[in-house]
Each structure stands twice: as C-alpha cells, then as structure tokens.
C-alpha cells in the first residue's frame, strides 16, 4: 500500500500539481463561450464624443482606385510645418501633422492650416505606438494629400495617398510614401517608378532619451523635497517614499528641436541621379489624371471632410464572431 511518504507518490503528486497550475494559468485556457470575460460590472467602453446629430459614415474598402476616389473629400496641397504629439483615452496616442499654406486642388475647400491627427505616438507609459500601414511624413516638406469623406479611426488620409513634392533638375516631381516617383494614375491607382528614389520617412531614428539632454542630478541633501510627504495612517512620522509622479503633459511633449533631432520625421535624401531621367508626373498632371479617372468612373471627389477620429476609440476593436 502506498503512502504519501512514498517518494514515488510524492513525484506523482508533484506532476499533478504542475499540471493543475499549468491548466489554470495557461494562455490556452478557454473562457466560457459568450460570457463576458471582464470584471463584473465592467463599465461601457468609451465611444468618441461627436457633435449632436452627427451621423457617422463608415469607412468602406479601399480596393480599387474608384473606391479610393469615391472616399476622397479633398486633395489638398500644403507644407508640413509642425508636428505635435497628444494622448487621450479615446483618441490614444496621436501624431498631429500641422500643414500650413494649404489649398485644395480638387474637392472640398480646406483652410490655410490643416491638422491631421494620425494614430501613433507616445503613450503615458513612455512607449510608442505605430500603425503598420500608415506612412510617416517629413517635416518642412510640401505634400499632396487625399483626405477622407468617411469617418475614420487611424488616419484621415485615404489609403497611402500622400505624396511628397520634390524638385529634380528644376522639374517638379511627386514621391510616394515608399520612395517611388509617381508617374501617373492607372487602373491600379498611382503608377510608380520601378526604382526607389528615396527612402521611406522614419526608418532611421534616435530615441528621445538620446536626443533629450539629461537633467542635472538632484541633490539628496541640499534642498528640501518640495513634494508633500504622504504618511500612512498610524505610521507615525516615519518618512514614506514619495508617490511616483504621474506622467505629465510636459514629459509627454517634445520640443520641435527634439522631434527634429530624433530623425523620425526627417526628409530623406533624394537620389537625384536616379530620378533625373525618370518619367514622372507633376502635381498638376497627376491631379488632372485623377479628375479624369473620377469622371470616367462617375465618381465625385467631395463630401464631408472629417478631421476628427470619430469612428471608434483606439484601444479596442470589435472582432467578428464566426
């Protein structure tokens, strides 16, 4: 008869205990079907606050040039003058691209300053969020930008339709986010040069800790700690550790110099030798080709221009039940 003192039995019990621990902690553990998996009484998830009476227009697939143009409110030209980072619970970390000297080329008229609030940027924890299919834009560059006439979550730009204006040998050219010259507009969307003439923006960067000067170390003896000392009840007058400071707006924000020094939004060099003999479109010829394509497809560029991310909050996405 075996007993608990039997080493063999202890071994078996150990295995059993391990199995139980694994079974209860494994990521493969299944939740009960259709039961809420959050804490009891979990509050409703946030929704974007929209103006009264606002009717959301869902973003539609962007499979074809016709669908892209049908979801374009405006094509505007402007110079990217400033970049700011913001964070709020619903909007999440946003990179705000501020364009100046803006004017509409076709579609809805835009004001001289246009701000695009693209998802991506710093979180309160100090990490960075980026979105795979959204291009980064270069500071101090002229752009031709397609903006949506639907609501949106991630970016007001239609697909990847944002093109940097450059000059090659005195000739105006457009460069797509991946660094190709734009040669026209085809049945597949923008037609591009075979070779890249530029790197995408933001591949090489420096961290903020590398570009931000280190503040002088605080003395532990010279000056009194300006923070109030919080004492736990009944803990006498013993010193308690100061609470961790929350991440402040100042710590979240970066100066223009720091943003530039990071290289994240630096305009990549243009390989002029590669570009000089390439056929390419000018902004005018590109827009003319698009306007003609829209007419052929019986599509009107226009509609409601929404510059706020009203479709849904960033921090969760409903999945499709099958």
């Amino acid at each position, binding site marked *: 008869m075996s007993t608990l003192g039997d080493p063999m039995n202890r071994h078996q019990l150990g295995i059993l205990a391990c199995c139980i621990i694994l079974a209860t902690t*494994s*990521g*493969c*553990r*299944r939740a009960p*079907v*259709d039961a*809420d*998996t*959050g804490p009891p009484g*979990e509050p409703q*998830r946030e929704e974007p606050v929209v103006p009264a009476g606002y009717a959301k227009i869902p*973003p*539609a*697939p*962007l*499979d074809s040039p016709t669908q892209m143009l049908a*979801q374009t409110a405006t094509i505007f030209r402007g110079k990217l003058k400033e970049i700011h980072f913001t964070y709020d619970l619903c909007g*999440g970390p946003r990179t705000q691209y501020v364009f100046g000297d803006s004017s509409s080329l076709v579609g809805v008229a835009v004001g001289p300053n246009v701000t695009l609030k693209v998802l991506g940027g710093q*979180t309160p924890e100090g*990490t*960075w*969020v*980026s*979105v*795979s*299919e959204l291009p980064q834009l270069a500071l101090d560059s002229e752009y031709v930008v397609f903006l949506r006439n*639907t609501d*949106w*979550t991630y970016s007001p730009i239609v*697909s*990847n339709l944002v093109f940097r204006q450059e000059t090659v040998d005195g000739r105006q050219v457009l460069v797509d986010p*991946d*660094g*190709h010259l734009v040669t026209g507009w085809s049945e*597949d*969307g*923008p*037609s*591009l040069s*075979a070779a*890249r003439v530029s790197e*995408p923006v933001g*591949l*090489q*960067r420096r*961290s*903020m*800790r*590398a570009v931000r000067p280190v503040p002088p170390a605080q003395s532990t003896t010279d000056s009194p700690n300006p923070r109030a000392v919080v004492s736990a009840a009944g803990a006498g007058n013993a010193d308690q550790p100061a609470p961790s400071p929350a991440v402040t707006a100042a710590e979240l924000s970066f100066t223009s110099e720091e943003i530039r020094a990071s290289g994240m939004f630096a305009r990549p060099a243009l390989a002029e030798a590669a570009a000089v003999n390439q056929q390419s479109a000018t902004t005018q010829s590109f827009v003319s080709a698009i306007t003609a394509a829209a007419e052929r497809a019986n599509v009107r560029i226009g509609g409601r221009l929404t510059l706020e991310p009203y479709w*849904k909050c*960033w*921090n*969760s*996405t*409903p*999945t*499709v*039940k*099958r």
Partner: protein
Amino acid sequence: MKMIRTLVMMMMLTTLNEPAAFAAAWKVCDGVTVKPKYQPMGIFWDLCSMPDGSPAQRAFLSAMYEVRNYVHSLGFGGGYKRIHNGQCLIEHDNDRSDTALVNRADIDGALGLTLIETDCEDIITADVMAAADLNFTRADESRVIRRAPAGTTIGALVILHEVGHALGLEHTSSFAVMRNGLSARAPFVGMSPGSGGLSSELTGDDVFGISRIYGFTPTYRNVYVSSQTLRASGLIDNNVNPLNGDLVWSDPLMVCPGNVVNFLATVGNNSTTVESFDLSVYLDPDVNGYPHGLADALTTVSVSMGQGTSSFPIQFTVPASLAANTTYHVFVGTPNSLLTDRKGYDNTARSALRIRRKVGC
C-alpha cells in the same frame, strides 16, 4: 501528361547568379534594428473570429510556422476570448500581442493593420488585424490579386504580411510578401494542392530583411516557383510575351502543334546558398495537375541562383499530341526532387497561361 513527350531542351542560365536587388526595409533606432524585446514574443489569437479548425486560424498558424522557419522571435501565445457586453474584442492597451479578424470599417477600410508598441528599438507588443470578409483558404497562385472585395482568397497573404510587421519588417518594393498593398499586391508562390500550403510564403527579399534585422545568415534552404513577375512598380501575371513588350496572351491562347510560345518563369531562393536545379514547363488540363516529372517536360532549363527572386523568358513548342477541345494549363516546376530543399510543395506553379488547340490544325 502521357501524351506530351517532347524533346527536352537544356539551357544554362548562368546569368541568374547576378546579385538580386533587395529592397527589404526595417527600422533602426539608435543604431539598433527594431525587433521584439522578449523573444519569442507570444502572439495570441482571438477564438471568436478565428475558432479552432477555421481557415483563418490555420492561416495565422501557417504564417507563424513560416516565420519560424527562419527566426524564432515570435511564438504561439494561445487562443483567447475577450468579451465585453457580448462583443468580442481585441484590446490594444493590454500589454499583450493578439491577432483577430475585424470589420474593414474598423481598420479604416484596409485589408490589414498592425498596431506596434515599441520603446524605440524594442517591439513590446504587436496586435495584428485582418479584414474578416476575406477568404483565408489556399489562394489561386496563377494570378496576382488587384482587387480584394469580400471573399477574395488573399486573407492568408494579408496575415503573413501583418505578422511580418510584428517581426520588424517594413514595406518593400521588391517581389515580396511585404510589398505595399497599393498597385498590384503581393505575389503568390506555387503550392501543390493537398500540401496544406496556402500559396503565401516569405520570399528571398523578405528573408533578406529578416536576416538583417536579426543578424544571421539564412540557412533554411528553400526554392520556390511563382507565376508572377515584377514589372516597373507592379506585379504582372506570367501569361505575357516577353519578346513583344509583355503583350498579354489571350486566354486561352489558341495554338497549333509546332507553334512556339514565349512567356515568363519566376523562381526564387530563400537562402544565401547558391542553388542549382532544373526547371521545366509542362501541360495538364487538370487545374490540380501538380507536379510532373522530367518525362513530361516540354522545355527544361538549368537554373543556378543565389538568394532572391528572378524572372526570365521561357519558351516551349506546342506538342503534336495536344488534344482538340481541351484547354491546358501551363505549369512551371522543378521536375526533380531537390534533396536540400525544405519545402517541395512550392516548387511547381500553375501559370496564368492556358492554351487550346486551334480548330483546323
């Protein structure tokens, strides 16, 4: 095909040893390539949208296995369900990497999106999302997909592309899974039916990028065949005449025995080892007629190539045995098994070119 037995023409294509033009891209922060911080970074999958046994879950697992052929930086997290008020969710602020299928409207109309959280040089989490209305079964490798309305069999390719972002890859303009989605999407590779493959694989350019991010020499030896070719900035199908400005052949191409047909062949090699192998053209009226041996070859060329993807003109003579009233698919594949090749099921591709015997000849 028993009826088609013609002379094997041997050609030496030594020019394929030229270095391939890689365009794979990745981010660098403070001089360090950006990649997952804690490897393997476990990626969990949403059991609401990707239930056990579903094509979508298979496509995801297939993408993970494909990536892990080269680098073990991503791992299998496990299935999960996060339900709030009866709604399944993928959460982006939960310090975990998840994959899920979502409505296109919720990803701004895109086919897929990946939210990546980094501390500059380290990827901490990556949430992969793909449009739920896509088809996640094996794709028809013979044609590049230009439009992806609901039901298009591009789901597996989208998941592999987005998992590539989780790995640290950025977009490329080369022949690669990581091609940008605009203007002719990413290429398919050949995939024998019944092999379990989904026609989506990392190509030489993708593996080049991975090897640069992670700093290793790719030794996983795999040769693949595709029916697509990169032209200018877009992909084209191989049913073109390269001697006439890539003029697209009619479908099916009406031919007489003895006619010479020119089209394109595309082969790739994922490792840095120079691979030498034969490549043949054969015909089969069966859409699933893979693979055939050397005896059925209408043309055989010898290929020797390093890492990358190469396309070249290839021709065959229409055999006298071509049956009337039958449409034949043109296949390109390796007639001999390659002992060092890790995946034999991607060595034959059905091309977009189909031929049919002209009446009266």
